[in-house]
């Protein structure tokens, strides 16, 4: 009965979405206030209906209702409750329901926090989001119904994919989807602006906090995914350029470009058409990511069960949504004015260059992801493009982008003087070059790539320090007042940029100085790596709720002093008979000591892989700093005050920052 209620709620949600996607948009075109007024109530009704469906599915999982096909294929009676709940989004149908759910959360948020928007604009935004929702609800109800019954009911479920039975997996997909789907808000703002022909700076100002919010979620989601891969896959890697990872990374790159370009559009009125295009692209890439993951056109470690009809549906949906918005763009964009003029040396042109680099990086990731498919489609054979391609293409694009990141915030708007910039930045340049030469030598060895990475990281540290120093110095006020004087969005930018530097430093050091050994170990054997002694103290058999595990114990000492004990596990999940690795990690900001159990060998020995990964945690700390910077920018005064300021499109914001 409960699953039928969920199913019915989805059908009702579709009907509501049809109203939400049509009347408000037509009403906005005709100036019909009643029709426009339907936007908010329908958005809220739709949210409630999808929430009901979501809870029905969660209930079916919690109560182990194996008469529902989706529950039977993604759960098991021995699965602990928290994973049974997370299993709601562990498979295809449930992920779509989560997508729809999150879309409706964003829509409802827009309906509450859009009091300052003109009625027509708000009606169009909510209408466009309703149109997107129609697509997803139709998709679920036609070819991916999570509530489909299994008759007769299964005795027990086939269990959740063991890869997903991990605390990281409970949070990672919702975070990622909040980011993906969050770009639908920026997209809806852009489409609404195109529809209304109001492509001034106002839409940019309104959509900025939404875009930043989505970007914060996406950053955190990608970070959680990378961290999960690091300890769960047992190879010590943190990024694999896998098709599914790329699917989340492309919207991130474009979203990052969008955040910056929105700032320019808002402050200076430039880049207007470009910003609209980026907003369309960011969401289009999110949709494309969904297509790649869900249609099975690409092989991937994340591969899910696939069905060609589903692929066809998503492709048709992509054509309607992306194709339609690009047609709209081609039709309306020529009417957009050119915007403010700026010099070759100015903050605008630095930001433009950064934007172009980020966009090209996204295109090259897209190309690398789809290249195997293109060749295959042309009958030129099967190839796979792996890390070699991405590493080669990505580094040359990111290096200038990171360099410009140091200059951009310091340069003036409109026109900056190159000699003055050079004078301001010579210290930062000197310090970063010196560090890039000395630090690798202190750490062991120097290569051009290590040197470049360290130079860029310290370049950003140095220029940021200069930026903050210039901002805070020369005043008699107490330090605290001086710190509080720049806006929070300015501080947010500084912290996010420092996050990039921390990230770059982590990547460079771990790539340049990590070491690993693969050894055969018997109880009592000692392996040596990076000055540490790893003593293998044997393997214990342990029974988990739905798996049996061999847990190794490795004691780490340095010069006879005990440091820590690692407990890597090799689990076999009983239902699917699938072996899983749980690495044993001792993390710290200096280095991670990482061990994973391989195969059992003859005579009670095990093959063991041990890694020493200096500063690998900085990668994720950097991501968290970026996300925190975004949050800080969101907490800026002008957003908190926006209910009091009636937006008119010409309001002047005192604080000039990016």
């Amino acid at each position, binding site marked *: 009965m409960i699953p039928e209620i969920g199913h019915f709620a989805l059908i009702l949600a579709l009907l509501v979405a049809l109203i939400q996607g049509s009347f408000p948009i037509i009403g906005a075109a005709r100036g019909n206030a009643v029709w426009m007024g339907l936007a908010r109530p329908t958005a809220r009704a739709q949210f409630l209906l999808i929430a009901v469906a979501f809870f029905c599915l969660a209930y079916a999982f919690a109560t182990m209702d194996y008469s529902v096909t989706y529950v039977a294929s993604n759960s098991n009676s021995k699965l602990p409750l928290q994973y049974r709940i997370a299993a709601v989004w562990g498979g295809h149908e449930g992920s779509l329901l989560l997508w729809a759910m999150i879309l409706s959360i964003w829509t409802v948020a827009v309906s509450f926090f859009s009091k300052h928007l003109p009625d027509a604009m708000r009606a169009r935004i909510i209408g466009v989001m309703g149109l997107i929702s129609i697509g997803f609800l139709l998709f679920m109800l036609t070819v991916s119904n999570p509530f489909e019954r299994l008759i007769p009911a299964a005795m027990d479920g086939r269990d959740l994919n063991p890869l997903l039975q991990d605390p990281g997996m409970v949070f990672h997909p919702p975070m990622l989807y909040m980011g993906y789907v969050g770009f639908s808000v920026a997209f809806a703002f852009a489409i609404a602006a195109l529809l209304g022909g109001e492509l001034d700076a106002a839409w940019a100002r309104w959509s900025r906090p939404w875009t930043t919010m989505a970007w914060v979620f996406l950053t955190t989601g990608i970070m959680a995914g990378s961290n999960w891969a690091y300890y769960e896959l047992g190879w010590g890697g943190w990024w694999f350029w896998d098709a599914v990872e790329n699917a989340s990374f492309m919207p991130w790159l474009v979203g990052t470009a969008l955040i910056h370009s929105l700032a320019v559009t808002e402050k200076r009125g430039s880049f207007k*058409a470009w910003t609209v*295009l980026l907003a*369309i*692209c960011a969401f*289009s890439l999110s949709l494309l990511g969904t*297509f790649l993951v869900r*249609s*099975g*056109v*690409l*092989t991937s470690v994340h591969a899910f069960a696939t069905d*060609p009809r589903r*692929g*066809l549906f998503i*492709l048709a949906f*992509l*054509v309607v949504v*992306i*194709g339609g918005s*690009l*047609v709209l*763009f*081609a039709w309306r*964009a*020529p009417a957009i004015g050119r915007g403010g003029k700026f010099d070759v040396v100015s903050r605008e042109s630095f930001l433009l260059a950064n934007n172009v680099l980020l966009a090209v990086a996204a295109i090259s990731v897209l190309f690398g992801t*789809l290249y*195997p*498919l*293109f060749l*295959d*489609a042309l009958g030129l*054979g*099967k190839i796979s493009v792996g890390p070699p391609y991405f590493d080669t293409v990505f580094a040359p694009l990111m290096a200038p982008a990171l360099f410009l990141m140091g200059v951009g915030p310091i340069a003036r708007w409109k026109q900056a003087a190159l000699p003055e910039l050079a004078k301001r930045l010579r210290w930062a340049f000197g310090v970063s070059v010196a560090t890039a030469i000395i630090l690798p030598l202190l750490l062991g060895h120097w290569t051009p790539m290590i040197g470049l990475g360290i130079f860029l990281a310290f370049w950003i540290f140095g220029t940021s320090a200069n930026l903050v120093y210039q901002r805070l110095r020369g005043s008699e006020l107490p330090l605290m007042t001086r710190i509080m004087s720049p806006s929070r969005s300015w501080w947010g930018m500084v912290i996010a940029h420092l996050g990039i530097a921390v990230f770059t430093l982590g990547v460079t050091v771990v790539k340049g100085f990590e070491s690993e050994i693969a050894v055969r170990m018997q109880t009592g054997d000692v392996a040596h790596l990076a000055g540490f002694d790893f003593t293998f103290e044997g393997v214990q058999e342990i029974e988990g709720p739905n798996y049996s595990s061999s847990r190794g114990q490795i004691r780490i000492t340095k010069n006879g002093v005990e440091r820590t004990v690692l407990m890597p596990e090799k689990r076999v999940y009983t239902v*699917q*008979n*699938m*072996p899983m690795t749980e690495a044993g990690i001792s993390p710290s900001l200096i280095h991670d000591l990482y061990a994973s159990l391989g*195969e059992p060998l003859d005579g009670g020995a095990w093959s063991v892989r041990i890694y020493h990964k200096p500063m690998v945690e900085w990668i994720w700390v950097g991501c968290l700093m970026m996300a925190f910077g975004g949050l800080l920018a969101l907490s800026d005064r002008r957003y908190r005050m926006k209910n009091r300021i009636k937006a008119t499109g010409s309001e002047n914001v005192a604080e000039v920052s990016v």
Partner: protein
Amino acid sequence: MKRFLLPLVIFLTVVGFLAVGLNLDPREVPSPLVGKPAPMFNLPRLDNPEKTISPKDLLGQVWLFNVWASWCGACREEHPILVALSKSGTVPLYGMDYKDTRQDAQQWLEQGGNPYIASAMDTDGRVGIDYGVYGVPETYVIDKAGVIAYKQIGPVTEEVLRDKILPLVKRLQTQ
């Protein structure tokens, strides 16, 4: 106007490729070994480690070579099909137990039935490297001259057997 149409044109090109891609199977990977002699090996037999198997002994007949393991989930999918094939007696089926223990492998054959005339034990996976094993299961069709005629990556399904492997075997047998 024209330059604003560019994104649309790019997008439609990508869509064209995606549409074609939907009809392709990303798992169909051609093997560089097809058309080359099957790599030689001399491995102990699973049922009797005293005896060995080598492709050399099988020259002059068309045979199937199936790489399997007791730890492999997808092998369970194809196993009934292999058992049925072996009962039909159309083509001799030899196996290679890949990175496995003798005890587990024998237990698995006792449970699911043994479709193989004999299985070689590739405990350390060295021969698997020679054969370019991507993942278990894989199945090779080897002709009378000892040349690999076809390679199936992933489980053998009814369709693959009916449409690809058996017609090929029939053709090779009449050569």
